[in-house]
């Protein structure tokens, strides 16, 4: 992206690389930002939903995130991928807006807790898959009991599927820190689920 590059005439932005979208936005091309929205709306909304736990809140946060992206996309310098940059913008915005709010999940229901450790292989039949989906919901609800730095790392790794290197770029930390946060987040979840399973078992025997 040098200043010597010439400005294209008619551009089909859907076929352009991410950094070219940033350049197009810098040139004031409305279609370039439209394409950014098309590519990353699901990512932004999904992460906002994961972090807020509320569809309504996720929509509000997503709107605000895209305004921030619009304002700062011209300064994107391609040192990271546009995807990790947008993850970082989204995460930072959600942190600032949700920072002191309680993680908006419901307490684990009794039957959820019972199923909390009964995860099954998704390759099995539809009934088993339903059980697995319930278990997934149980685990994501338990995320509310994990401290934010560890929760963010686990969300980015296990729900968003980012690599350790990508998570390091998003969070602005070293890979060793990423590894530690993921491990502590998962271990925290394990303890929550085992505690809930033990409680459910006790109540069942009474």
């Amino acid at each position, binding site marked *: 992206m040098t200043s010597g590059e010439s400005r294209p005439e008619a551009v089909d932005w859907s076929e352009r690389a991410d950094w070219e979208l940033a350049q197009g936005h810098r040139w004031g091309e409305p279609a370039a930002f439209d394409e950014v929205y098309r590519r990353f709306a699901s990512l932004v909304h999904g992460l906002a*939903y994961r972090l807020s736990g509320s569809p309504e809140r996720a929509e509000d946060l997503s*709107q605000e995130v*895209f*305004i921030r992206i619009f304002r700062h996309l011209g*300064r994107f310098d391609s040192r990271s991928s546009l995807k990790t940059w947008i993850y970082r913008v989204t995460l930072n915005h959600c942190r600032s807006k949700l920072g002191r709010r309680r993680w908006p999940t419901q307490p684990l229901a009794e039957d959820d807790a019972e199923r909390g450790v009964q*995860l099954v292989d998704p390759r099995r039949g539809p009934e088993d898959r339903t059980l697995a989906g319930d278990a*997934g919901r149980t685990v994501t609800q338990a995320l509310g009991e994990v401290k934010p730095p560890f929760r963010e790392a686990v969300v980015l790794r296990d*729900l968003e599927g980012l690599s350790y290197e990508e998570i390091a770029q998003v969070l602005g930390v070293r890979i060793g820190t990423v590894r530690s946060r993921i*491990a502590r987040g998962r271990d925290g979840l394990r303890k929550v689920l085992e505690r809930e399973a033990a409680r459910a078992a006790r109540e069942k025997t009474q």
Partner: protein
Amino acid sequence: MSKNELTPTERLSAYLDGELSAAEIQALEAELEQDRRTRERLEGLRRVVDGLRQAEPPPPPPPTLHHAVARHIAIERERVSFLDRLEQSLSPLRRHNPILPMFAVVISLSLAVYFLSVLFARAEQGETSLVMVGAESEGEGGHVVGDRIEIASRALYWTGRVWRERGVVDEASREIALGSPEGRAWLDEHPDLAALVDLDAPALIRLDDALLLVRPPP
């Protein structure tokens, strides 16, 4: 534990992510065969990871989001000023070559100092008396060129009534032609200025707070 040494939980978690080296995997798998508690802990972590990865995907962005973002961005586009865009386009330059903005600051400061010094110099000049010529002259001498009197680096302009310096009324002026009867009479009243008859060009003099244009005899 050294900085690079993993805790047992980090080792198990990294194992599930395929982030261990071949040697580390071999060592851990040997330990898993021997140690029931490590195996149970690994299974606990595996259940968490599997549970998270089987979780339902988040809902897709609602159509209302696209409309809301488009509306906000339209407002934002209106708001973005020329200076915002200029600043955005300069930011890579600033990042890659920090000398340029520093150079611009130095130039700006130099220009500011220069203009301030000129202003102060003008203010000081405005307070000095303009001219005294002749045998007892002091201060600056000057010469009339048409309707203009050049005195050192300054110029006075005849407006038809008063001499003005850079548009500011200096004071009332009177013209005295030493070759005329009035001029000779005036010179008789001021014997201390007799040397003015030796002028070879018109001159401006200050006398008793009056500014006078004195023309020598033809």
